[in-house]
């Protein structure tokens, strides 16, 4: 623009068009280069933030997949394990007995309590289950790996330094001496933390697992999927293909778009008012959680489905109508299958959002301490993001790494779901 000359036929004709084009070329390429740079900078910035997030979560979380175990020689004392009362026998006593035998010089009530704290309270449950499974062990002495207490675990993993004054450590000098003894005897080791992946919640970090939350999320999302997918598609198909275009359908459309932007806590309030107070459904149940999340995901699915239906080329509709398909047949046989990849993507994105949601579940009682792994749609349960929230708020140091580990599991599920979206898209996508 800047080098435009006054219109003069003489110079115009002497300058060929190609010269003018060439003169501007450098500027055009510069603009293109600049734009590419901006684009790459934007991508790089988001990659940096993503990797910071991942590195911090993975860095904190990976130690949680290992847990410190101590090998105890448990003598299954027939005096304690009376045959007729195996379920209620003094199993903690067995653990204490074996610890005392290992460190016979520990005297005094205080020191003994300190010694007993080395092993997790879960050790007693572990031994109990062992005895109940196989009562023949009674009378024998068996070396058993039991989880160490969370403080010992933190110390063994190096999160509690040795060099601070004893009064400021949760691990006392005597305990350190015992641990060093155990290390020498190779009776303390880090093993893969199966408990984290298979157990329900616990207040003892070494016994806490996410399986309960995973199952809760599963049941909740199953309800959400079973409801929101058919309802969402039906609504989208009706609005897009059948509904007359008038102010009522406009109003509905505006409302659906609005609902997609409503903060999720509002759906929780709605769920509290309608499902719990009016219908009297149980609190903390995946059924209600699923219903609430359905309300939340429906707008997303409807909007994605409508966009997807709109993108089906009119030529396919005409082809079907042209040989005498009814409106319904046209939609069901041709338009819907072609729109399916987009609808599935929208649904999975909606489900992924539902998987990561915790705010609306607060209102319907799914933010709760639940130890037992839910086995159905009405059992009390919690979900993965809520579990992360609860652990993040726990005072025990060992929950810090477990919070990150739970986040890693949640991220893994999200990645799997999004990969499924990509796969389904590829699988069902057809050219026309």
């Amino acid at each position: 623009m800047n080098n435009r000359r006054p219109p003069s036929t003489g110079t115009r004709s002497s300058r060929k068009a190609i010269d003018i084009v060439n003169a501007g070329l450098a500027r055009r390429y510069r603009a293109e280069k600049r734009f590419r740079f901006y684009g790459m900078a934007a991508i790089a910035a988001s990659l940096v933030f993503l990797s910071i997030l991942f590195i911090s979560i993975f860095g904190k979380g990976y130690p949680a997949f290992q847990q410190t175990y101590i090998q105890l020689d448990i003598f299954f004392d027939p005096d304690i394990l009376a045959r007729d009362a195996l379920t209620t026998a003094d199993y903690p006593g067995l653990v204490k007995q074996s610890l005392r035998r290992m460190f016979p010089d520990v005297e005094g009530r205080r020191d003994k309590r300190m010694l007993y704290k080395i092993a997790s309270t879960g050790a007693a449950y572990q031994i109990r289950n062992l005895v109940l499974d196989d009562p023949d062990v009674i009378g024998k002495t068996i070396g058993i790996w039991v989880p160490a207490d969370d403080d010992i675990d933190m110390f063994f993993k190096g999160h509690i330094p040795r060099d601070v004054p004893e009064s400021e450590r949760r691990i006392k000098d005597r305990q350190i001496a015992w641990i060093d003894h155990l290390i020498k005897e190779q009776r303390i080791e880090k093993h893969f933390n199966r408990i984290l992946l298979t157990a329900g919640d616990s207040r003892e970090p070494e016994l806490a697992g996410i399986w309960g939350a995973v199952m809760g999320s599963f049941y909740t999302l199953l309800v959400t999927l079973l409801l929101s997918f058919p309802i969402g598609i039906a609504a989208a198909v009706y609005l897009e293909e059948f509904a007359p275009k008038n102010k009522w359908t406009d109003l509905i459309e505006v409302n659906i778009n609005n609902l997609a932007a409503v903060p999720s806590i509002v759906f929780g309030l709605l769920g509290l008012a309608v499902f719990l107070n009016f219908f009297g459904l149980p609190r903390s149940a995946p059924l209600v959680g699923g219903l609430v999340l359905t309300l939340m995901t429906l707008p997303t699915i409807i909007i994605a489905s409508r966009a997807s239906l709109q993108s089906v080329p009119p030529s396919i509709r005409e082809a079907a109508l042209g040989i005498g398909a009814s409106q319904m047949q046209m939609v069901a046989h041709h338009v819907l299958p072609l729109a399916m990849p987009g609808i599935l993507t929208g649904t999975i994105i909606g489900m992924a959002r539902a998987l990561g949601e915790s705010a609306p579940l607060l209102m319907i009682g799914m933010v709760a301490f639940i130890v037992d792994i839910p086995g159905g749609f009405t059992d009390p349960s919690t979900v993965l993001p809520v579990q992360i929230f609860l652990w993040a708020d726990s005072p025990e140091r060992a929950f810090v790494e477990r919070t990150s580990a739970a986040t890693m599991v949640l991220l893994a599920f999200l990645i799997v779901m999004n990969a499924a979206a990509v796969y389904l898209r590829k699988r069902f996508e057809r050219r026309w």
Partner: protein
Amino acid sequence: MDAPLEHTDDSRIAKASTVASETVKDQSSGRILYSRDSRETVGETFVDNPRMSCRNVDVYYDDKHAIKNVSLDIGRNQVIAMIGPSGCGKSTILRCLNRMNDTIDICRVSGEILLDGVNIYDRHIDVVPLRARVGMVFQKPNPFPKSIYDNVAYGPRIHGLAQNKAEMDELVETSLRKAGLWEEVKDRLDQPGTGLSGGQQQRLCIARTIAVSPEVILMDEPCSALDPIATSIIEDLIDELKQQFSIAIVTHSMQQASRVSQRTAYFHLGDLIEVGETAQIFTNPRHQLTQDYITGRFG
């Protein structure tokens, strides 16, 4: 054409010349040279025993008057070509013939369109069987993203035209044979129809249309997306199909119209200007606008 019809049209020409405000007549031939305001159609609008006939059809898109009082017959077992410059309404009138315009909310049709004497715009007429009787082939080949077999079988399947698999196989084969595609695809019926070449796709669409045994086939510029060889194959096919079906074809190509059709209708800005035997339209048009168009003065 027989005498009385000729007579009617002559009288129309006469009437047009008196009504029009700006009409110039060639003194030697009696041809209307120019008639800007003439809304009267020149030529043989009606045929004996028509398959379909339009009577005083007006089409509006909202306020836009797209088709202005058009009357036209479509004869049995013959091809009628509809020609005219872009935006003249030729596709619009074609899409009225099987009520494809119903899908456009703002489109409004008045007048009568008769199929075997029954008004298809009558309240009790169901469009589903209507479209089975009046099939349509579109400008761009639009096979379903399914197998070749399913493309052809789809229509018969939804209408329940085949009792069993054997019947369906037979129906698919005869349809593909009629469309001249059988030899090319018989070994790959399970492959997607979208994998065929453009010309093959268009013939597949024709096979799909004739599989439901329509009485009329409407073709909306069926060759505009095809190369000359594919075009000539389709044109030969159209020529054969007229043995069995009545065909209305909209085309941009005057050569094509002259090659495949028996009658030709020339549209201009929503008016049907002239209709007559193809040979007559292309050799001796009676209206100046037709003359201008076929000689390439505009269009």
